[in-house]
């Protein structure tokens, strides 16, 4: 059952256009929302939540139209946009005291458990927290009101590898019982390799792919060969090519591989897919 349906979301800025963004997230799964900086990840999540006005498109959460049920649904969603960057001179205890009032399902015991897990000192001011701790505080707020869907924008950026691992483990615990889902945006692809069931890839405001992680990886292949093997025909099917003094490597859609022979073909990593797409955009 779908917990989140995004249908043809459009938002036009002067120099950026979110084009017909559509994807679906099933109950009980983690979806990684990836793309390079500026690809439209934050704009998509903000448009989904009406924080940024969408020009068109529909969002359905828990089978309800988001626009018509905005406030009730906001209570059922845990969302965060990077680290806490408001009221820097206030103690986190004070900020939490205000935030908790807005959520009928706020569970202070869970909140305190997360604070303990994240080593968050209630008496510290936001300004006194490191970038990573600000992200953890933001997460603690998003996780403490028994939400069923989590929309997390860069929840792992700024965290050290151990903390990141801890958060990813936590994500898996959250979806374990099959009732809750997480959509999290990141540009750290190793996060997704650890825990994402689905991948939605956004590139210059357009969704290139939204599928299971394995299907997503299977849809692309890395091709390597010598300079002399790089024919015009091969260049055409490749998304982007990196040339070195010894040869070339490039990314192509698996479906286009029928025309390739005599070359090394390898499965790419998520990072490879991102890098080659970015390379194509830079060359255009």
């Amino acid at each position, binding site marked *: 059952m779908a917990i989140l349906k995004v249908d043809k979301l459009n938002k036009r800025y002067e120099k950026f256009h979110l084009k017909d963004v559509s994807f679906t997230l099933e109950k009980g799964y983690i979806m990684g929302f990836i793309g390079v900086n500026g690809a439209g990840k934050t704009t998509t999540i903000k448009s989904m939540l009406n*924080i940024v006005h969408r020009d068109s498109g529909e969002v359905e959460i828990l089978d309800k139209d988001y626009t018509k049920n905005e406030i009730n649904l906001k209570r059922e969603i845990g969302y965060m946009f990077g680290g806490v960057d408001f009221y820097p001179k206030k103690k986190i205890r004070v900020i939490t005291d*205000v935030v908790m009032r807005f959520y009928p399902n706020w569970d202070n015991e869970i909140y305190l458990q997360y604070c303990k897990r994240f080593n968050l000192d209630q008496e510290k001011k936001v300004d006194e927290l490191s970038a990573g701790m600000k992200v953890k505080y933001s997460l603690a707020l998003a996780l403490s009101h028994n939400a069923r869907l989590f929309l997390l924008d860069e929840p792992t950026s700024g965290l050290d590898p151990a903390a990141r691992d801890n958060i990813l483990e936590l994500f898996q615990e959250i979806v374990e019982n099959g009732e809750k889902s997480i959509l999290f945006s990141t540009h750290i692809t190793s996060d997704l390799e650890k825990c994402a069931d689905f991948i939605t890839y956004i590139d210059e405001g357009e969704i290139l792919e939204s599928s299971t992680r394995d299907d997503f990886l299977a849809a692309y292949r890395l091709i390597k060969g010598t300079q002399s093997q790089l024919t015009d025909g091969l260049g055409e099917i490749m998304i982007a090519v990196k040339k070195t003094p010894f040869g070339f490597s490039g990314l192509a859609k698996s479906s286009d591989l029928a025309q390739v022979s005599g070359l090394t073909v390898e499965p790419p990593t998520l990072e490879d897919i991102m890098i080659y797409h970015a390379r194509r955009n830079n060359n255009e």
Partner: protein
Amino acid sequence: MSNLLYKEFRLAINPFFYVMPVLLGALMFIPQWIFFFVPLYFCFITAPNLFGVLKSNNDVSYSVMLPVSKREIVLARIASIVTLELLHIVMAVVFAIIHNILYSSSNIFMDPSYAYFGLVFVMFGLFNVILFPMYYKTAYKYGAPVIISTVVAVLFAALVEVSVILNKDVAVFLEGSITRQLVILAVGILFFLVVNAVAYKMGVKRFEKVDV
């Protein structure tokens, strides 16, 4: 809504601004003075500082993250600022009463009377109806909205004070019969309520279009 008001008074408004009505209200003790300066200091000091604090604390980004509508955000903001204005008026009334007990001679400029407070409501109404709709075009730029609304408030106060000095009829009209003064007070309060409702409606309309 009460949660948002709690947020306004606990987080957004610095306790310093709750002390200001007392400090500024005490200016009512200055003999022979233009008493419109007392509420005007709210426009000169409190308003720009308040909006500056909101901007530096990223208040709008915080507010839109909460499970509330943009309409409620505007309503809570206007309600909290109006509450501060009312606090200024209440403290001014307290000090005006003491003023009237202490000083027996009449003021050259407008006396701190019922009519004066009615016109203070009109002044704050004009201030708000310009400030809020202008502010909610961006929800962070406050320079021009505060300056323009303050200039209008000053012009209104100046018009009243100059009229009282230059035209005896105006002075008699405003400072004569208590009944008439009470009517002016009631009209002032009504005007204040109506224009704040207009400011709210316009503020909501504009804030809905803002991408935070």
